[in-house]
């Protein structure tokens, strides 16, 4: 199982848009994709216009009362795409998790309990906050994708995030397989964008994804129509960039999974 968490501490960096777009591209390419909306605002669920049906188990009950995660899954508009939507209960998830033993590993355990696992990829969309549910989502992921905007505040927030990740991984004896910084809304004609990119290349070289997502109004237009950009405008700059991101991740994962020469 390949699992991605899309997270950044700074708000408005495009976490949900990129999660949804990436999920759609991977589904288009034939992967069976499960998306998990861990943001209490539920924007990913709203993007795909998905809600749990009446009486259906919700993620809260699955994590807190250990009901099967499979019962929380709702089909999304693409046949290869499924979603665990966010509901109002997400607001109470943190307080409910406090008293639970091994709380940080709840989602990982719930995913592993699904046997056989019917998905190729899991994408977890998080909100821009540090809480117990953030740990729950991060620890269920193998790859962390950090969207950043080409501005100073995004750059500054990265330092805090890396410090947090370093300390958290050491404390919990946890390690991601990969961490990738994904530059979003890049316009390379703007000097500040170029300056920011240079700084990222200099100080975060190992983690910076070599493909970027360029600024494209089609992302907003697609969100208004409640579809992913690849479905709304497949030839647009944004859709093509998302395809490159998906291809890059596929390549990296296949390389990491291929047996290393001894």
């Amino acid at each position, binding site marked *: 199982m390949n699992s991605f968490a899309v997270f950044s501490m700074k708000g408005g960096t495009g976490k949900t848009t990129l999660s949804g777009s990436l999920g759609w591209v991977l589904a288009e390419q034939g992967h069976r994709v499960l998306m998990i909306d861990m943001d209490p605002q539920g924007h990913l669920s709203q993007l795909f216009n998905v809600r749990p049906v009446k009486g259906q188990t919700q993620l809260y009950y699955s994590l807190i009362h250990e009901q099967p995660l499979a019962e929380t899954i709702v089909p999304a508009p693409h046949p290869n795409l499924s979603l665990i939507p966010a509901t109002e209960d997400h607001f109470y998830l943190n307080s409910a998790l406090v008293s639970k033993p091994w709380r940080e590993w709840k989602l990982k355990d719930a995913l592993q309990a699904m046997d056989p696992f019917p998905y190729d990829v899991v994408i977890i969309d998080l909100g821009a906050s540090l809480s117990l549910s953030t740990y729950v989502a991060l620890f269920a992921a193998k790859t962390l994708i950090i969207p950043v905007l080409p501005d100073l505040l995004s*750059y500054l927030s990265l*330092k805090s995030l890396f410090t947090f990740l370093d300390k958290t991984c050491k404390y919990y004896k946890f390690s991601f*397989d*990969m961490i990738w910084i994904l530059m979003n809304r890049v*316009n390379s004609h703007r000097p500040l964008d170029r300056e920011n990119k240079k700084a990222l290349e200099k100080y975060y070289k*190992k*983690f910076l994804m*070599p493909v970027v997502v360029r600024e494209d109004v089609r992302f907003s237009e697609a969100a208004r129509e409640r579809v992913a950009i690849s479905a709304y405008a497949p030839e647009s*700059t944004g859709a093509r960039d998302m395809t*490159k991101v998906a291809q890059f991740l596929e390549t990296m994962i296949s390389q990491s999974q291929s047996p290393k020469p001894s």
Partner: protein
Amino acid sequence: MEEIYEANAPTEFPTPKGQPTLEQNPAADEKITLPVKETVSRWKKEILDKIQFLKENFDQANRDREGLSREMDLLKAELDASKEQAKILETKLAETLETFNNLLDEVSRAL
């Protein structure tokens, strides 16, 4: 400006176990050339769209002007005809007044 990036450079890094080292950036060349090419073609399309829009507006304005000038000619002709009519009526009025005055003279002489 670059000092701010250096001053806020990361000091602690997590160590992902499968993080590859990318020797070269395969998309680097593309990133420099592609946006320029795409922006130019986008601008070209926008300019052509604007020219088309202005051309359509210009044609419409020409059609409107022709219609209005035909209407103006018609109104002018009507005005000329009305002026002629007014002249005839003025002459008739003058003749009538003269007849009336003559009659009044004749009545006063008879009295």
